[in-house]
């Protein structure tokens, strides 16, 4: 970790980092025990980039997204780390009251009160989800709801968060808003027009008509667009998109990805894109982090990760995708299952070692992030960055044979699957083809 921090400070001197996440740990305290969903995670997001986080279920990618958005709810908790947001105005506003939260132009969001964080939602940070239904109230028209979003953002930004007194004001006001607003009289004509503009911006044909329709009258793709419009209402700096196209058909997915890319280009917004789909990453992102068992195991530019990857997990992921263009051959899956994130079962070793074809004695110490060949951003949490695989140091077969593993490999439901860890006996890897491919 310290290595990483030193690296990152020497790098990226010209690109401004809008978000600096250091040592973030998010844990869930469940009946089965403590689940380490995200462990000691570092992230540097540059202003205006599209940063991708890719991983399978249980990798912690969605929990990372929710941690950024301050959406972790009990039994979950951010137990450690900093989430620093670069905003000189905010830094000035909170410097006197919370000096420990401020570092130059950066404010550690975990060190300011919840209502300050809340005031950033929508205007500084926004999020879109896999399932747009969750973002809309079925009994109000889409236009009304967008107008509300606009209204809330207007009021929030009209109220500078400069003093404590005003922050308290805001809390009261937002309470009032949330109880009173679902009624169209409180939505001004101006907000309504802005809502229609937003619908137009996200490519909804004839937004004037559509604004008066209810969510159920929208198709899946249109509602996804409307949700994007809602997220854009407050002109956020950072958009966190959690599996934004996973529930969509492929032709609609292409439309939505196009739309996000267009909006990003026009507004210069920063996007953190969370997905299990490496194709979506390749289409959209500038840089990418691959997550496994709550950590980023490999990160860098697209070239670093797709062409010059070092981590055997990255290799395994890419080898598992059936090729759309090539001829048929045998896939090269990763043997075994997603690991347990139960604290009591996580050993202090490389978390991938039990599935890794290259596991050696060296891997029994938890590896730090090493610099790897390629761009300056390329880092890998794997000993192979430092030394070649040596047969003589390989762990004997069946070394991890008796460990317990969880049942969780659905990616459809981040809330449930990432916490729902049920131990079970290890499965004998049925597929032996994974072992001889490097």
């Amino acid at each position: 970790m310290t290595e990483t921090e030193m690296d990152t400070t020497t790098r990226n001197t010209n690109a401004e980092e809008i978000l600096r996440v250091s040592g973030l740990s998010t844990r869930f305290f469940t009946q089965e025990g403590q689940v380490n969903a995200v462990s000691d995670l570092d992230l540097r997001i540059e202003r205006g980039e599209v940063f991708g986080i890719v991983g399978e279920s249980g990798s912690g990618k969605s929990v990372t997204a929710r941690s950024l958005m301050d959406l972790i709810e009990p039994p979950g908790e951010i137990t450690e780390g900093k989430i620093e947001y670069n905003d000189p105005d905010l830094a000035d506003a909170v410097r006197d009251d919370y000096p420990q939260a401020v570092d130059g132009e950066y404010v550690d969001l975990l060190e300011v009160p919840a209502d300050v964080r809340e005031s950033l939602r929508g205007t500084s940070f926004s999020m879109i989800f896999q399932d747009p239904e969750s973002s809309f109230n079925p009994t109000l028209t889409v236009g009304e709801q967008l107008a509300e979003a606009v209204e809330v953002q207007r009021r929030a930004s009209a109220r500078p968060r400069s003093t404590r007194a005003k922050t308290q004001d805001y809390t009261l006001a937002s309470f009032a808003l949330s109880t009173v607003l679902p009624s169209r009289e409180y939505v001004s004509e101006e907000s309504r027009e802005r809502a229609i503009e937003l619908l137009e911006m996200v490519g909804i044909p004839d937004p004037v008509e559509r604004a008066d329709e209810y969510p159920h009258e929208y198709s899946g793709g249109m509602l996804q667009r409307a949700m994007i419009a809602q997220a854009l209402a407050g002109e956020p700096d950072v958009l966190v998109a959690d599996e934004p196209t996973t529930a969509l058909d492929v032709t609609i997915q292409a439309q939505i990805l196009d739309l996000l890319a267009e909006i990003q280009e026009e507004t210069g917004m920063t996007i953190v894109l969370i997905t299990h789909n490496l194709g979506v990453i390749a289409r959209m992102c500038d840089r990418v982090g691959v997550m496994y068992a709550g950590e980023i195991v490999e990160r860098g530019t697209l070239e670093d990760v797709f062409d010059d990857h070092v981590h055997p997990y990255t290799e395994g992921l890419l080898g598992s995708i059936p090729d759309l263009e090539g001829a048929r051959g045998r896939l090269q899956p990763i043997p075994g299952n997603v690991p347990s994130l139960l604290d009591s079962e996580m050993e202090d070793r490389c978390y991938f070692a039990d599935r890794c074809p290259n596991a050696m004695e060296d891997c029994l110490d938890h590896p730090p992030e090493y610099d790897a060949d390629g761009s300056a951003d390329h880092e890998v949490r794997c000993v192979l960055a430092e030394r070649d695989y040596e047969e003589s140091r390989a762990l004997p077969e069946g070394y991890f044979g008796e460990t317990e593993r969880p049942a969780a490999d659905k990616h459809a439901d981040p809330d449930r699957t990432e916490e729902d860890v049920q131990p079970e006996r290890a499965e004998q890897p049925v597929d032996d083809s994974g072992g001889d491919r490097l």
Partner: protein
Amino acid sequence: MSSDLSDATGAETADAASDADGEQPLVRVEGLEKYFWENDSLIDRLLGDEPVAVRAVDGVSFDIHEGETLGLVGESGCGKSTTGETLLRLQEPTNGRVEFDGENVYDLDGSELTDFRRSAQVVFQDPFSSLDPRMTIGDIVQQPLDVHDVGTEAEREERVRDLLERVGLSVDQLDRFPHEFSGGQRQRIGIARALALDPEFLVLDEPTSALDVSVQAQVLNLLDDLQTEFDLTYLLISHDLSVIRHICDRVAVMYLGEIVEVGPADDLFEDPRHPYTQALLESVPRASTAEQDRDIETLSGDVPSPRDPPSGCRFRTRCPKVIPPADLEIEQADFRELMDLRERIERRDVSLETVGEDGRFEFEDGSVPERDVSAFVTALKDRLLDRDLPAEHDAVVEEALTELATSNWDAAAETLRAEYQSVCERENPPLETPASWAGADVDSSEGEDHPVACHLYAESTRSAPEPDP
């Protein structure tokens, strides 16, 4: 996933349907239709009380040869899963015929039906959604053996052990419950259960859609091995084009209840003919660094409702290649725009009252005052069109929109229809191997069977009233 046998049948002559080589397909589907009737409140409102047919599957025909894997690919709501269920007789068809091993599946009863149920099995995306969660996996795999009264109790237990081992689970897990397993393991259990009665034919309905990609790869390899080992014939239903390409010998593409193209997998992926297949393939983001430089033309709009499918070619409301009238000089993109406009006017999907800023136009008795008409038309055109059209077409549009100034929807639609009616809306193109294709670049790949349902390939049938069979 091809065995030698399927290679031989997959590359059959263009005449495959008539069994030129004398070999009968294992499964033959002819004109299969499955309609659902619905009358829910929203529909009620729109259409009164009449029950509405949802044409989930609307006349599909295909063959599956022994030992091959046929892929059925399409987006949600295209009818691919309903096709799978109906051909297994898990649903009653509205119309059409399915032959299995030469017998009409819908005529079977008694022991013949039982035999069919043994020979044709299905693997669903979530194999346990319909099973009792209190059953152990041993019971689950053994249940079909019990139902069909196969062998002695000891033999059945032995069979269950073999099956579980074969799909990669350990026998000491027999007494565990489904919820104790990961998604990948559950799918292995589902496969073991489907294999219990030693079937010939498996319908795999999105078997890996809920799985992570690393686990999906394990299951796909397993399915591949099992096919070879047990001489299985597969119908793979999936929305995932990469999976389809990886596994299938031949592929059928569905759109809105119909098959629009069928062909050998390599052919279809390398040389997709139907504009929908082309768009579908283009839309898939590739996991490669070259992806960002790949230009893709995304399809506009959504899939129309199967309650009221478009006339003619069902893809015409989104097709970037929709065919203009023969005597019309027009750019393709302009024509597409005009067709979209017409579609909206025909559906009366434009709110005239809100044209212009802040109630600029008074709408009295459905009409804009005479003096405002031309401003109204300009404002409306602005709102409805994304492109500037050439003067000639612009004039037609203005004429149509002028009708809307008096809410004369029919006249507006008629104005556009008279000028821009496409063959794609008049006739539903049949699924056939293009005759004119014989002379084109593909005649090198000898004897291929790759029919497509699109007027672009049917010049001859359009001019000749009686198409040559």
